[in-house]
């Protein structure tokens, strides 16, 4: 893959860019998790979405379109000289699914943040990653005043298989966020090994 096909190839080492997705409902702690482990303040990128206005039929080619922008936060973790990890928080709303497709392409894996105050807000994320075959783990964020659920209760509510790790986390703590990522990568490795030996 290392290309030596040009004379202007830069002299600095070019690292692999590895993508990890952080998904979950609005307010589940995605931005918080990305910030707590990123080596830079999260950057933001935008995408423009054009969509047909709801309920408007194609009236002789006159179709109303609305334009919306969707913001994505991302953070970065440099690992040695060979690898840079990019962490992307998913856009919260359902109508931004098109960005999820792009995020999922080539992603190493995903963390689904489960907010125990509203577990249902991460159902979509779980469905999506299962459907796309993107390996994921579930990280349960504990918010003050929310019911304490055990990992097993969350697993049951989300109906995720036994081999998908469900871990407790606090996205505000760098150490905890880092452990979540370690858990994800370990899970991805384990799944690959299982797939290759099975």
């Amino acid at each position, binding site marked *: *893959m*290392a*290309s030596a096909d*040009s004379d*202007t*190839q*830069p002299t*600095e*080492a*070019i*690292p*692999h*860019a*590895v*993508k990890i997705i952080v998904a979950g409902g609005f307010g589940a702690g995605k931005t918080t998790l990305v910030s707590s*482990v990123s080596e830079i303040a999260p*950057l*933001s*990128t*935008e*995408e*423009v*979405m*054009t*969509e*047909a206005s*709801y309920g408007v039929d194609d009236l002789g080619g006159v179709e109303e*379109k609305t*334009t919306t*922008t969707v913001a*994505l936060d*991302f953070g970065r*973790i440099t*690992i*040695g000289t*060979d*690898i840079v*990890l*990019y962490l992307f928080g998913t856009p919260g709303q*359902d*109508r931004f*699914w*098109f960005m999820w*497709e*792009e995020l999922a*392409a*080539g992603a*190493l894996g995903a963390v689904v943040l489960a907010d125990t105050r509203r577990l249902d807000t991460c159902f979509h994320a779980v469905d999506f990653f299962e459907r796309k075959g993107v390996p994921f783990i579930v990280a349960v964020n504990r918010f003050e005043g929310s019911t304490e659920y055990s990992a097993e209760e969350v697993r049951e509510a989300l109906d995720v298989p036994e081999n998908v790790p469900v871990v407790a986390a606090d996205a505000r703590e760098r150490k905890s966020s*880092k452990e979540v*990522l*370690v858990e994800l*990568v*370990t899970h*991805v*490795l384990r799944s*690959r090994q299982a797939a290759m030996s099975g």
Partner: protein
Amino acid sequence: MNAERQQPQEESTVALTRRAPAELAPPEGEEERFLRPFAVDAGVNTSRPDGPVEQLDMLSRVVAARTPGRYEWLRPERETILNHAERASTVVELTAELGLPLGQVRAIAAEMLAEGSLQRCGPTRSLGHSDLLHAVLVGLRSL
């Protein structure tokens, strides 16, 4: 405000945003003049039906193959891209730098690749998937 638009409508959304209608494709040779107006108002430039050949992922890495020209300021996005990509940069980092939508930066970068102003760069040291995963794991553990 969008309460009535709850239905995800995934498929149609994808179709509408990923593919620009054929009649909106810039005529041969006029890509540059067409790009900005489209890019600014509609975001339909995310991809074009018959090109560019360059498929850029958000994490594709590019590097400037030349320095900004004397009249580059006329197209400030390009000037910024050339300056920022003096060191190899990912498309998504360029978008953050420029403050422009991903689709637009992707389109400009693809044109710049096609005309030779930018070059794509792959990792210096190639790693197999498994080695990559192990290295990521070790790196994360030692954070």
